[in-house]
């Protein structure tokens, strides 16, 4: 599948400890259809919050983004809204995994997250490992391990799983 090397978009700035009940309230955990999921994105911040977010926007958040429940929609609803990247000071563990599995890029860059402002433009250079903000400010971020990038580039864990299962089938039993 393959993904872009560079993402440019408008920042949606969020604070610290944005938890999964805010990102995707518990009463909707049976909603798995992307167009319906995106309607409840960040509903904890307001019922119409999702209308602030357009495809291509990049979420920039503080510490402990995605803390709380293991509900996958916290990550897949962000993806369903067309947001390709979340930059944060730090991520909660389960959300981090769910994001990779949903094909959502999760980049840890405290300096960029601190400097970013809501509605400003941002560019994420995946290949170069740089985040650019207006005024020539640039920040480096650590690359994701290859095997995690493999999952994201495949389009998520379902697609990746399909490949693994098919490859296994093609091999003779050990």
């Amino acid at each position: 599948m393959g993904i872009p090397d560079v993402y440019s978009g408008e920042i949606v700035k969020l604070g610290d400890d944005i938890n999964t009940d805010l990102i995707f309230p518990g009463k909707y955990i049976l909603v798995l259809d992307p167009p319906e999921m995106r309607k409840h994105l960040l509903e904890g911040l307001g019922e119409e919050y999702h209308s602030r977010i357009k495809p291509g926007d990049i979420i920039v958040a503080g510490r402990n983004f995605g803390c709380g429940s293991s509900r996958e929609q916290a990550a897949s609803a962000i993806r369903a809204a067309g947001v390709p990247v979340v930059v944060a000071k730090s991520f909660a563990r389960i959300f981090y995994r769910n994001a990779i599995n949903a094909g959502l890029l999760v980049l840890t860059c405290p300096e960029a997250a601190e400097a970013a402002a809501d509605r400003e433009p941002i560019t994420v250079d995946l290949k170069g490992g740089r985040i650019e903000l207006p005024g020539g400010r640039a920040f480096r971020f650590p690359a994701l391990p290859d095997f995690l990038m493999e999952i994201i580039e495949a389009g998520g864990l379902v697609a990746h799983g399909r490949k693994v299962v098919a490859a296994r089938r093609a091999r003779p039993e050990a």
Partner: protein
Amino acid sequence: MREMGADAPFEPEKLVVTVDHWTPAESARTANLHRGVRLFAQEHGLKHFYDVGEGICHQVFMENGHALPGQLIMGRDSHNTSHGAVNALSLPFGLTEVAYLLAVGSVWLRVPESVRIHLRGRLPRGVFAKDAILHVIGRVGADGCTYKSVEFEGDLIPALSISERFPFCNMAVEMGAKAGVMPFDKVTERYLKGRAKKRYRPIAPDPGARYENTFEFDVRGLTPVLSCPHTVDNVKPVEEVAGRTIHQAFLGSCTNARHDDLGEAARVLRGRRVHPDVRLMVAPSSRLEYLEADRRGYIRTLLEAGAMILNPGCGPCFGAHQGILADGEVCISSANRNFRGRMGNPRAEIYLASPATVAASAVKGEIADPRPLLRGR
């Protein structure tokens, strides 16, 4: 799993399935989902399937001997860390990841750094395991142990039953932990006798094991505490928030709704009535715990005091289908999360506390210290 191209789960004998969210079903959509799970279990001849009404997965899994020392347990819910109470390494995952495991039979894991939480002393009267873990989370912070394996140790632990060890491991995830593990000892051994489904091999740290951090706590000086709106780590002593009017009290969830938790609440409520302006809901965490609480007379005591008894399952804790709060209402709960909107209404507030504090507050109609109500009981 099917979307990934697998027809059947890998090693089905290792799979335990529980239908526990939104039980009994409140809508056709939910009922159809439950039915789908049931059919999956039948289709693949799953030996370990617990249907609607058996209880919350973490309780059911552990009480039926599926959680064993030294095991690596993958679970589809964030509170899967709970089984550290019986010395297992039990990790939470999202749903697609579990599907991948069913399809492929393996998963990638990053080996976490380890952190020690050292608990010294004995809990004072009227102060419980829940107070201790809330106190720890308040100090360590919601991301204080992110991605870490938390090992609990110290002379408090031998005095704790498995039920009391459970909230520590259960709420480790609220500090960001990947896992929370209790040591194996005679208490664990006794709990597992007659329950364990297979042989097991306990785990313990190597001598000279390296830890990134050690947090020290002396529980002797603790008082009852609460997590205050709207984060779990916003922990305050009961003295600071006592007097706050409450409208609903919830004694339920995987964290604190076993028969001993209900017993603590019953001890407070015996001969007393729930405040007329308060709704007290009690949901035992499993059918077995419900039966035990009934055998001991706790259910009758709670009912006579004015409580509503709900069936075991996951519902009010995450705002599913029962006990949703009205605008401006305040709920005190023995559950594990109090994020804004957690119980179904973002215009309500949630405090987390021990079962005794929940019961005392239900009697007074406001947040209340349980210790005076426990005197002489």
